[in-house]
């Protein structure tokens, strides 16, 4: 179990009922196999802790994943009796980093309506959420730009909001430099998401990543064998000729 995943889990675990968390969909369909399981598990964990969830997205084609995660974990999205009370989906915010700044300064003005067209004033939980200062936790499920550095610049540095992230394995080495001082926890790729699912088992969360992780481990083993074989072949060719 990686310390980054444990830290991610612990940060969510420390939330108290009523704390407000913003979860941002900063990925597209191309990263879905890696990022969607982390999205679902995070929503399940936030719901189990009784946190109020504000869903948002800075990637236009990532926003539908928020709606889908709410439907799969909570049973419904806008038709849910607790929609607007315990969770909302604000939808897409344009302009990347500039949009993040605008959202942090004035949530109501930046998102006048939610993803489903409901005016933000009609959502009771949004009445007390005015700016970035009103959020206890920021979660970005990110796979590119805008993503982690933009959130750090515009939210973590400006408002001091505790930030955690789930990133694709490709982005993981670049994000690790921010851990643990600026990013309090990270889920790194499919492996990280699988670890997180294991940690959530005590909440009755049923993960889906055990079979893919078996396949991944086997494929890694195959890659290692090929690397060793390639190097042995190279060494034999190089030093065998000398003899």
């Amino acid at each position: 179990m990686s310390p980054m995943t444990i830290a991610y889990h612990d940060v969510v675990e420390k939330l108290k009922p009523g704390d407000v968390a913003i979860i941002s969909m900063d990925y597209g369909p191309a990263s879905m196999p890696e990022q969607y399981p982390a999205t679902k598990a995070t929503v399940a964990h936030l719901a189990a802790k009784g946190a109020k969830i504000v869903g948002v997205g800075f990637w236009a084609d990532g926003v539908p994943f928020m709606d889908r995660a709410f439907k799969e974990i909570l049973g419904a999205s806008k038709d849910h009796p607790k929609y607007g009370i315990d969770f909302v989906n604000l939808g897409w915010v344009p302009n990347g980093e500039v949009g993040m700044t605008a959202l942090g300064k004035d949530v109501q003005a930046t998102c006048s309506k939610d993803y489903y067209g409901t005016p933000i004033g009609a959502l009771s939980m949004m009445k007390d959420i005015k700016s970035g200062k009103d959020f206890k936790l920021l979660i970005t499920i990110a796979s590119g730009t805008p993503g982690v550095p933009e959130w750090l610049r515009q939210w973590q540095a400006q408002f001091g909001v505790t930030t955690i992230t789930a990133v694709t394995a490709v982005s993981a080495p670049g994000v690790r430099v921010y851990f643990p001082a600026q990013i309090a926890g990270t889920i790194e790729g499919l492996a990280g998401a699988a670890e997180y699912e294991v940690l959530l088992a005590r909440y009755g969360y049923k993960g889906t990543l055990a079979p893919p992780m078996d396949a991944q481990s086997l494929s890694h083993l195959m890659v290692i064998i090929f690397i060793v074989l390639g190097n042995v072949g190279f060494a034999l060719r190089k030093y065998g000729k000398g003899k």
Partner: protein
Amino acid sequence: MLGTLMAAAFTLMVYSFFYKENKAYRFAEHVFIGLAVAHGAVISSKYMWDTALTPLLTKGETYWILPMLVGLLFFFFFSKKYFWVYRIPISTVVGTGVGLGMAGLMRSQFTDQIRQTIALTNPKAAWYAGDYPINAVLIAIGVIGTLFFFIFTTEQKGPLRYASHIGRWTMMIAFGAAFGFTVMARMSLLIGRMQFLLDYPAGVAWYSIPVAILILAAVVLMERSKAAKKA
């Protein structure tokens, strides 16, 4: 069901690239780009409608006219004569982005990073934290070595050469780790697609495997007939 079958077909069309670039792959690629652009256009229009146009028309918030007019100036991109007008919105967007970015960047990606790098060691820190003694020493050696690697104004000999070598090794280890993670990510994506084709919903595999064979056969036949015509 139809959506799933279409998704499976498009997945297989994209994977036909493993053989070589072909018309099925190009068709899938163009559809994907077209869909992404169309989705972006619709969702952008909806945002503008909700945020600017509705308040302008229903509440009389006339100040929304100004940003919308500036936005319309983007269309001067298509005019050779008045192309200079296009520079007004683009400079506004770039200027705002750079200005806002720089403000946060100085702290989150410059001073905070330096502070973490030169932080005093703390034996009580977690073993993975940057200020845990062994990590702090490794970070210090790696950072200083890498900085020395990029000194090009002096000939790299003597102690500078050794420091530069440490920097090169540090970077190679970092690139190796990044490449390893990249391989892992690609495997994850492949596994995700394979799971979709084989598991969801049950029965798609019976459809997808013959379709895969048909697409591959069609591609091979097309390529061969093209090569025979050329010959």
